[in-house]
């Protein structure tokens, strides 16, 4: 293993060891996605029974698909943000940032933890949807991998922005780790098409990779058609969002080294 890979693994091992010794943390990862799936699963069942088997089944599938894929974004974002916050809460940043670990390696390790946390949270909810509500997310086909990739990348971009704000503003910015993505949900067209949004705010929706993914998901569910233009737009937007987030992180990391925020945060 190269030195860089060992440093990345070192930081990931720190978090994996934490989960191994704390079953409430593990349980919490799956708790919210399962809860969401229960609530929306029953709601979808109710709607399907009222709307008839054709339209109702499609509406239920769009609803449950939206819930599950939104959890991918949310858990990816929170997985990265909270892994970083764990270092602040354990007053360990002072050791991390004086080790040879590069900031870019820290980001890679946080992405690794984000993927693990997302899978531990979302896979049980996917299985629940299949077992209880007869909704098979994998029926979307191989394009699901591209949906997942786009949603995760956007989650990381948002998480890096949150981490940047925590670096700059300290503990005061921590609540953003839980709440920031919910603010983007109405524009992400998770449960409805972008065309439902008022004309004045549709441009916001089209700037978010998530809205393109959810449009794509509905295309597959309702018309069995992969909307490649939406997927391409999602990837292109993700490149812009992720590059912007990395630039913001690098800038705020440097500012924190100038202002002394790393010293006060690390102790």
């Amino acid at each position, binding site marked *: 293993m190269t030195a860089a890979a060992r440093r990345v693994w070192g930081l990931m091992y720190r978090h994996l060891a*934490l989960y191994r010794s704390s079953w409430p943390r593990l349980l919490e990862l799956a708790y919210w996605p399962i809860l969401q799936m229960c609530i929306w699963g029953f709601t979808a069942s109710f709607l399907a029974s009222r709307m008839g088997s054709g339209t109702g089944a499609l509406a239920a599938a769009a609803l449950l698909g939206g819930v599950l894929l939104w959890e991918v974004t949310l858990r990816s974002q929170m997985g990265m943000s909270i892994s970083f916050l*764990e270092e602040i809460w*354990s007053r360990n940043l002072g*050791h991390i*940032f004086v080790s040879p670990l590069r900031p870019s390696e820290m980001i890679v390790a946080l992405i690794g933890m984000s993927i693990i946390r997302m899978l531990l949270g979302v896979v049980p909810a996917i299985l629940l949807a299949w077992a209880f509500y007869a909704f098979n997310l994998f029926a979307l086909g191989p394009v699901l991998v591209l949906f997942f990739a786009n949603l995760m990348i956007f989650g990381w971009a948002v998480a890096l922005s949150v981490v940047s704000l925590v670096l700059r503003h300290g503990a005061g910015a921590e609540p953003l780790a839980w709440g920031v993505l919910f603010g983007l949900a109405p524009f992400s067209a998770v449960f409805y098409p972008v065309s439902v949004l008022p004309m004045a705010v549709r441009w916001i929706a089209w700037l978010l990779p998530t809205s393109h993914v959810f449009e794509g998901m509905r295309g597959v569910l309702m018309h069995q058609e992969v909307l490649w233009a939406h997927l391409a737009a999602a990837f292109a937007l993700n490149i812009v969002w992720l590059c912007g987030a990395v630039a913001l992180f690098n800038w705020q990391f440097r500012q924190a080294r100038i202002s*002394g925020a*790393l*010293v006060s945060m*690390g102790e």
Partner: protein
Amino acid sequence: MSVIQVEQLTKRYGDVLAVDGIDFTVAQGQTVGLLGGNGAGKTTTIAMLLGLLIPTAGRIRILGHDMATNRFAALARMNFSSPYVSLPHRLTVRQNMRVYGNLYNVRGLDRRIAELSAELDLGAILDRPAGQLSAGQKTRVALAKALINRPEVLLLDEPTASLDPDTGDLVRSWLERYRTETGCTILLASHNMAEVARLCSHVLMLKKGRVVDSGSPEALLARYEREDLEEVFLDIARDRRQAVDA
């Protein structure tokens, strides 16, 4: 050969000048003490040496590497210990050692952990969570973390603060032995004058961000005509006596 070279190091926070153009060098194998009251600039200086803080002006070279442009090459060969920075308290001591062993790319990590465990008497606590340890045990674990990569430069910020005299003495003895055996260079910030007198061959007295005096402990005692360094510290901190050759 100077392992640490500091030239005109300055740190300003708005109107506050925390470190005011200090210069010093530390030779290989030397232990240098940074002394000064609260707010004198010790922690700020150490944070700049570690790359946690970017200086407003000045230059730092450690082990031949410019910390402004190549700090990671130096950081891999250094380490740091402070009672004010914790290790993840839910992880066991062994897990913490593994984390830092990987971060510092230590070869033969299990063997190194076993060595440190034997030398610092960590065997009984190796599989206990770091958060459940006593202050003395935590200090020994922090020292083990600081030595995991066999550092050539060790920066210590009050390493024996809040320790009982017995544990403090054990830590000092261990540091002396490590330096003798490895030729490690140590920069030590401390408020414990007896510790500084015992460990340090050279002392930098800081006040308001400036080096106001320096020399060996014996030279400082002679210059201020005092019996112990604590009196010298108070003379400087309170401006109550000038060095006789000043």
